[in-house]
């Protein structure tokens, strides 16, 4: 590697940093004022790009190429901002007082809906935009050709940073934003039109994201995977830079982009006879940057310690062990599920569907251990599902291990991942925890996508069939039922054991728990590891059930399925996740094959739940003390 290529990549890094910064800055401003982490922020970026590639040729036909291109970008940014304002007025206003988890879910539902709407409007094919008029060439730079557009992009980031800085420091609107970021109640008490301010801020944030997306027109095609990939990156940037800091967002974007660029520049590196392709390690590099920053500065480079968030919503009722009736119901359910293979003679589909339900139950219950007793809503539980599934599939196919051993390898893989990622995640709480778990899940997903030698890339791993006696539908189902029941029993014992009590104590009051001598982070770390391992077991079963595993099966959609299952059943109850898992699996089974817009429909369902029960689904149900 030469010094020239390093410098060349450094310039490239600046260009990428600008794009990252534009998304992260909007996210940060919106969070600062409204305290909402906009999960749909990547969607506005994606919309910006789709709008730009549509508007530019349209405008270009009337006004000429140059005006069309730049007009397209500007128009896309404005339309996105208007859409943002609309979303704020129609949706967000109704959920400002809702629990954090519901806000995250509502904006995530928006992401699902926007994605399917984009699919409907623009179709599944990637769309290429026009070249930038006047900037389509390249300048000679240290013997390399550097695209002019990249240089332009590299300059845009600092310019927007400067613009935002001036806006915040010099204008009344900016002063209001800063005041609201520091003390929202005060701003409201001063008689400022809060509603208008919030709408304007949301429009500003989404407009910047749309602008960022539109600018990519000459660099990459518009595609449907952008929303999530950008969101994951933006979360990393925001966590590294410190939530609420615009400066931090730029520095972090630059740091992340430059480290990635450096990896690309290094290319093939030989260490001790082994050749590493560094350009394939960009994701790992991104993870390492985040890890180092979080260890040294837990609140990000420019972040301040998060104020202790008062828990919204009423306290959960004390947990009570099952009474006589409860035990009978559980026993009856167990007998019913164990008897499903007998139904197979009548309805051959029954064991297949029941297998899906059993796997979903273990998945949802493992997530619930974190969400319910732990009070930590993970938006990246799919990561451990994926690690379990891929570990199992790799061991069964490539290594050719017998079924139980392959399954154990899968669980061990998930456990290792959960121990590693959990160490970082449990340092954070609330929305920060949600963002970091989602970012880790994106990293796992990307690795599954990119590390073709091991994971089979986008096709995944095939032929993951279990050995006898698990090779029949009934055999596999009964084995899965056994594993799931064991997992559920373990979770239940944990929750009622001192460990579970301590987990709940830390959720109720971290301050009190620490003052009582509970090692809160250690307790949460162990909970994270156990939840991840059990989730990995669900993933391993899934790989055997489907005979294959691909990145699509472990995308963030699966994490969200888990959240919806837990919420449908009720986060306050230990049995809830099981009911939710069964319900959602049935629903999916009925609707999924009927419509390509399944995700959007799921989004609508989530929105409906959130809007109908803004203080939590459990509030809509009669509370019964002693309910399981």
């Amino acid at each position, binding site marked *: 590697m030469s010094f020239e290529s390093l410098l060349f990549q450094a310039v490239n890094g600046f260009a990428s940093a600008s794009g990252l910064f534009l998304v992260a800055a909007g996210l940060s401003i919106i969070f600062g004022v409204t305290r909402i982490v906009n999960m749909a922020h990547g969607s506005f970026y994606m919309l910006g790009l789709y709008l730009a590639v549509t508007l530019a040729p349209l405008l270009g036909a009337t006004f000429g190429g140059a005006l069309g291109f730049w007009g397209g970008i500007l128009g896309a940014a404005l339309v996105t901002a208007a859409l943002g304002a609309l979303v704020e007025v129609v949706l967000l206003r109704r959920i400002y007082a809702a629990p954090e988890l519901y806000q995250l879910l509502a904006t995530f539902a928006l992401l699902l809906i926007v994605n399917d709407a984009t699919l409907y409007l623009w179709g599944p094919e990637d769309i290429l935009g026009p070249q930038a008029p006047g900037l389509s060439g390249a300048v000679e730079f240290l013997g390399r050709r550097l695209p002019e557009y990249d240089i332009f992009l590299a300059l845009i980031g600092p310019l927007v940073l400067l613009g935002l800085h001036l806006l915040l420091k010099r204008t009344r609107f900016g002063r209001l934003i800063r005041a609201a970021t520091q003390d929202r109640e005060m701003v409201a008490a001063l008689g400022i039109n809060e509603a208008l301010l919030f709408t304007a801020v949301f429009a500003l944030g989404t407009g910047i994201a749309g602008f960022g997306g539109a600018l990519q027109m000459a660099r990459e095609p518009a595609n449907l995977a952008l929303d999530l990939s950008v969101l994951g990156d933006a979360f990393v940037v925001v966590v590294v830079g410190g939530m609420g800091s615009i400066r931090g967002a730029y520095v972090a974007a630059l740091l992340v982009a430059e480290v990635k660029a450096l990896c690309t520049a290094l290319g093939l590196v030989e260490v001790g006879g082994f050749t590493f392709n560094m350009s394939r390690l960009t994701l790992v590099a991104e993870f390492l940057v985040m890890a180092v920053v979080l260890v040294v500065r837990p609140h990000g480079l420019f972040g301040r310690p998060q104020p202790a968030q008062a828990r919204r919503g009423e306290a959960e009722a004390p947990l009570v062990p099952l009474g006589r009736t409860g035990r009978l119901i559980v026993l009856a359910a167990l007998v019913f599920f164990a008897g499903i293979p007998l139904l197979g003679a009548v309805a051959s589909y029954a064991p297949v569907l029941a297998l899906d339900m059993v796997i979903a139950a273990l998945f949802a219950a493992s997530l619930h251990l974190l969400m319910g007793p732990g009070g930590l809503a993970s938006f990246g539980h799919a990561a451990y599902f994926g690690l379990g599934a891929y570990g199992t599939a790799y061991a069964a196919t490539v290594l050719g291990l017998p079924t139980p051993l392959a399954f154990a390898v899968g669980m061990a893989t998930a456990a290792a991942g959960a121990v590693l990622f959990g160490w970082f995640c449990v340092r954070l709480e609330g929305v920060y925890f949600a963002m970091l778990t989602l970012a880790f899940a994106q990293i796992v997903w990307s690795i599954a996508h990119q590390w073709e030698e091991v994971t089979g890339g986008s096709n995944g791993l095939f032929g993951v069939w279990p050995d006898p006696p698990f090779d029949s539908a009934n055999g596999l189902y009964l084995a899965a039922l056994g594993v799931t029941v064991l997992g559920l029993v373990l979770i239940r014992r944990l929750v*009622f*054991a001192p*460990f*579970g009590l*301590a987990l709940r104590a830390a959720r*109720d009051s971290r*301050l*009190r728990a620490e003052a*009582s*001598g509970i090692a809160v982070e250690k307790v949460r770390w162990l909970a994270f590891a156990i939840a991840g391992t059990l989730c990995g077991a669900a993933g391993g079963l899934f790989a055997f059930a489907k005979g294959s595993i691909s990145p699509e099966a472990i995308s963030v959609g699966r994490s969200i399925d888990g959240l919806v299952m837990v919420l449908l059943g009720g986060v306050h109850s230990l049995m809830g996740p099981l009911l939710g898992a069964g319900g959602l699996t049935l629903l999916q089974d009925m609707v999924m094959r009927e419509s390509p817009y399944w995700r959007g429909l799921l989004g609508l369902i989530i929105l409906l739940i959130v809007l109908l029960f803004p203080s939590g689904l459990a509030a809509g149900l009669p509370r019964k003390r002693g309910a399981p």
Partner: protein
Amino acid sequence: MSVPVLEISALTKHYGGVHALDGVSFSIARGELLALIGPNGAGKSTCFNIINGQLRPDSGWVRLAGRDITGLAPRRIARLGVGRTFQIATVFASMTALENVQMALIAARGQVFGLWSPARRMGREDALALLEQTGMAALAERPAATLAYGDVKRLELAMALAGDPALLLMDEPTAGMSSGERQAMIALVRQLTRARGLAVLFTEHAMDVVFGHADRVVVLARGRLIANGSVEAVQGDPAVRQAYLGGAPSSLSEAP
């Protein structure tokens, strides 16, 4: 002379250019009820949070029964025998009063990582005894979220006692209580101090509580220790009057 339960020496903490705490030293003996008072912003909370481990001092040290505990994590300090109650009482809202105390006992006994046996029967008798001592026995099975505020404060006291502490830190133990409740609470604390040989350090705004019950009073003003002595000595101290009242001749012994 025996080693004091708590000894702090030359504690200093800056925030930017502000001295939140500036070379503060004092100690507490076994069986002593020591009030830490001072106007708002005097550094009482900073002092508490340093002793408790939530803050790390810029300089100075804290010793518990002769052992240096400066800068240890709050949970470590708790396990070494420092109980704490907060200005705004905090308990575990989703548990019953009994479970709250059981939890505190389990933590104090290092049994938190028990993963299998139910916690239900663990420390039950001891927990009930603590609830009895704080007058909460009748409410043992009530969910903490449904308790009245005065009861939450007493529950919190029972939890703070669970670790059988040598030192109890109480941040405004009677804040938010009616006058009758205040007197009952401090009488309870005083009786426990005697019975268990505790050392209690408490901050308080209610002067009737301070001057009616404390064995000794330490006064902070703008981060400095300006008085340390008996109730009578502190009441008569001109520097204390100056700090509280800006020199106006008025009686400190009245409740604010």
